[in-house]
Every structure is written in structure tokens, then in C-alpha cells.
């Protein structure tokens, strides 16, 4: 995705981000890698950017999880949340709260769908703006309209 279309998508979809990737592995194995803490710490890292160092997880609906990330500059971020929905090996929905920051509760959804040996993994991260915004969202489309206009003007 190029940055220009990415930006437009972000604006149009308000406070939700959707990312997708195809992986040539069965959904069951990918699901395991995404939810088993021992495996998760092996892949969730990007050279020079960040690295998940620990993951504690009570993988059940209502169960809590907590992970630590080290950033490229050695800065640490703690992210916590709670599992809301688990459908093995297709779906995980959980809350995502950055403890070390402003503690806004956001939601992450992982969808896996397998076809002919290829699994599409989709991440949907929503509620990214301010807390309570979704509850009293009057005027929010206007804000996004302003933002859109501004971004297009300054492209």
C-alpha cells in the first residue's frame, strides 16, 4: 500500500485501521503463532524498530494479557488488554491499552481465513481516537471532513 492511499483510507474509515496479509501456511498454525506467548515473542519484532520481549496471557474469553515492547531506542512500552472473543483458528478480539501512555482503550481484531493452503490474516484496530468518542460521536464526521480537506490541501 502506498502512503498516499494509506492515508486516504485512514481518513475515510475514521478511527479504524485495517491491514491484511497472505501467508502460505494453515490458519491453525498461524493462529498458534499469534496466540501462544512462547511463539509470539519469536516473530513479533522488526529489526531496528521494536521487539516484543515478554507476553503474559490468559488465553480465554475475559482473560487478560500483557506484553512489553522495546522500541528501537530502548524505550519500553507496556500494552495490556482483555480477550473478548476467541474462535479457533479464525478469530480473536481483544482490547488494547497502552499502559505507559494515555491508557486509551482500543480494540484489535484478528481474522484468519484459509483457502487453498493460503491464509489471509487481517488486523482491524479500532477506537483509535479519544475515549468516549464513539459514544458521543456527534460532530466527529465533521472533524474528519476538516482533516480530509486539510490533508488534501497540503498533499
Amino acid at each position: 500500500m502506498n502512503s498516499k492511499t494509506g492515508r486516504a483510507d485512514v481518513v475515510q474509515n475514521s478511527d479504524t485501521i485495517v491491514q491484511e496479509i497472505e501467508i502460505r501456511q494453515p490458519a491453525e498454525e498461524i493462529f498458534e503463532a499469534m496466540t501462544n506467548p512462547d511463539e509470539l515473542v519469536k516473530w513479533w519484532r522488526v529489526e531496528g524498530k521494536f521487539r516484543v520481549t515478554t507476553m503474559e496471557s490468559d488465553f480465554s474469553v475475559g482473560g487478560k494479557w500483557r506484553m512489553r515492547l522495546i522500541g528501537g531506542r530502548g524505550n519500553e512500552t507496556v500494552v495490556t488488554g482483555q480477550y473478548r472473543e476467541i474462535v479457533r483458528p479464525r478469530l480473536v478480539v481483544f482490547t488494547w491499552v497502552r499502559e505507559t501512555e494515555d491508557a486509551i482503550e482500543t480494540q484489535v481484531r484478528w481474522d484468519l481465513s484459509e483457502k487453498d493452503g493460503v491464509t489471509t490474516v487481517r488486523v482491524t484496530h479500532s477506537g483509535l481516537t479519544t475515549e468516549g468518542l464513539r459514544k458521543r460521536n456527534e460532530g466527529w464526521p465533521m472533524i474528519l471532513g476538516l482533516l480530509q480537506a486539510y490533508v488534501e490541501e497540503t498533499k
Partner: protein
Amino acid sequence: MQGQMSNVTMPARSTDRAHRKQRDAVFRAIADPTRREILSILRGRQQTVGEIAGNFRMSRPAVSKHLRLLRSAGLVVTRQEGTSRHCGLNAKPLRAINDWLQDYERFWSESLQSLKSYMEEKS
């Protein structure tokens, strides 16, 4: 503001303090329906504080308080003309929201790439 966003790791964590402070101020400013309404009013044209207050049932000092918050977030700019103060909209700080969303977008995109490499190299 954009230049500061390079070398992103986790959203917000890597941005400098001043930048984050500004973003938080913008988020706080637009979280309130009255303040969003004020921005909407100013979208059309500049207005005096009195004109803006005329749109609301609340007291003028209450409206002024909202305006102060919008001003400190940089979303409203004011200009004194004689005895009246004219308020105008400045959409630029809203860019912080865009940057914030883009940071997360990058974070997830990189995370998925990483998962893909791990899974496909495993086989």
C-alpha cells in the same frame, strides 16, 4: 510536524514530548461535542466570541472556556479588532490525529510482515 515522525517504533512512544503533548491537546479539544460544534461553526467563516456564544444556551464565560481550550490546542486562532475578538479555524493541528493513525498503520503492517516471514521460513 511530519519530519518528527520518521523512525517510528510504537506509536506515540517514539515521538518527542512536545509533539505528543500537542496531539493529546488536540484529542482533548475535539473530544467534547460543544467544541466540535464551535469548530463546525467556524468552518464557514470567522466569528466574534459573541456570535459564537449566540449559538449556545450556555453562558458566555462557559463558551469562552471552550474557546480557550481550542486555542491552546491551536485549532482556533483569534484576532482582536477594536473591542471585539474574531475567531477563526486552524485545521492544521488535526494533522496530529492523522499521524497517530498512520503510525499505527505502519506498526500493524510491519507486524504482519514479520509474522509472514516467520511462518513461511518455518516450513
